[in-house]
């Protein structure tokens, strides 16, 4: 039962974009991916939503600066389970070019479990779509395990 539900449910991934202090390259590419006809993620049922409470897939970019950290974590907390996290670009994982800055908390995975990582600086839209597809797999697995509740 969970199995068929999983494959149906994952056809409606709603995306939310979270900027953790990025240089806006990844954000522009996410907006491009999410909104323009050339990539049309709506084919996959994706919708770009304005409120974190509507989201299923969170795209995070940026090296997590100290000033934005608490706000990012608070917003992340407002996203209902089950949610899947996709790190767009390398900054959330290692800081990329901003590694070891005094204002960056670099490893975002101390706070948030990154389910999928899309390396690139910034990754091309197709790569982001690939990341979303991977995220859907993760989501499906979670649905099949019945792990929908807040863990």
């Amino acid at each position, binding site marked *: 039962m969970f199995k068929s539900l999983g494959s149906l449910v994952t056809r409606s991934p709603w995306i939310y974009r979270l*900027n953790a202090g990025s240089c806006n*390259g990844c954000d*522009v590419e996410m907006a491009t991916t999410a*909104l323009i006809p050339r990539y049309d993620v709506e084919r996959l049922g994706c919708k770009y939503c304005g409120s974190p409470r509507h989201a299923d897939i969170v795209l995070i970019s940026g090296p997590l600066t100290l000033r934005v950290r608490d*706000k990012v974590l608070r917003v992340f907390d407002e996203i209902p389970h089950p949610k899947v996290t996709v790190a767009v670009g390398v900054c959330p994982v290692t800081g990329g070019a901003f590694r*070891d800055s005094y204002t960056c908390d670099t490893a975002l995975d101390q706070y948030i479990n990154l389910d999928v990582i899309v390396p690139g600086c910034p990754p*091309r839209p197709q790569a982001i779509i690939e990341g979303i597809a991977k995220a859907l797999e993760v989501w499906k697995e979670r649905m099949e395990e019945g792990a929908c509740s807040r863990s």
Partner: protein
Amino acid sequence: MSSTYTLPVGPLHVALEEPMYFDVKVEGETVRAVELAAGHVHRGMEALAMNRNWFQNITLTERVCSLCSNSHPATYCMALENLAGIVVPERAQYLRVIADEVKRIASHLFNVGIMAHLVGFDSLFMHAMEIREIMQDVKEGVYGNRMNLGALTIGGCRYDIDEESKGFMLDQLNKLKPLVAELHNVYDTDPLIKTRTQGIGVLPLDKAIEYEVVGPVARASGVNYDVRRKVPYAVYPELDFEVQTDTAGDVHSRAMLRIREAVESVSILEQCLERMPEGPNQLPGFVPIPKGEAIARSEAPRGEVFYYVRSDGTDMPQRLKWRVPTYMNWEALQVMMAGCQVADIPLIVNSIDPCISCTER
């Protein structure tokens, strides 16, 4: 509904590409006061730059901001070249102008597209972004990345334009030209765009001078200051283009000015591709950077970029400082937003083409 209440805009707000926090005091739908809180994208890049060597800083400055990602390393390299007295080969200077203008077109189209998105005109936004994709393809096809071109190196350019990519570029420009003209017409005549943007966020000339704004924001208010003309660099003195100015100084005139500048950029690109001389695209080997200080400026899509570099003779800068256009334009928002409607806040903020990651570094 006469009581005043505070509407927090941001820091993670859909209308803003980047985290920025405004405390907007609202009465009904009218804005009474705006307070800015910055620093969410402050990544300590100046400290990083002082800890990275000259080469690493090419990449680092490119990551200041991805929308004007070519202007930063270009100005940084220019500052170093001024410092070391390096003469860049002429072909490389043409190549630099080409990279700059490609980025300018893409950036301006992105900005006017976002404006359409903010007035809820998503189809027009998509249309503008589809037009921008033509330039994105150029970036990806010629340079290898859609945002960060990686075009520059100290003493030249890392890439070269061969016959094939020249043909590709000219094809794309020919595709772009009628579409941009059509887009100009839509923005100029669409009644919705006009009702929503004309007379909104006005910055009169005297205020523009007082707040020392730069770039399209200044030019839309009537300040005729374009670094490409005022402080010639690369091969701009040899190129034929006109500095666009306007007098209305509202959201609409800024958007129109950007489209007109994009049209000028297309013509600059064509001139460059035609006139580019044969020759090396970079200086061979590694150039030592002597002790000293130097300044370079260039016109990024958003306005004047300023670089100050100070070297103590080691392979790292003693100090590398840059000032970006948005840094100058932020404060003028308080003039533009005075007494506007809640619905106009995103529009006005977007009209200065804010680049927060640039500003906060």
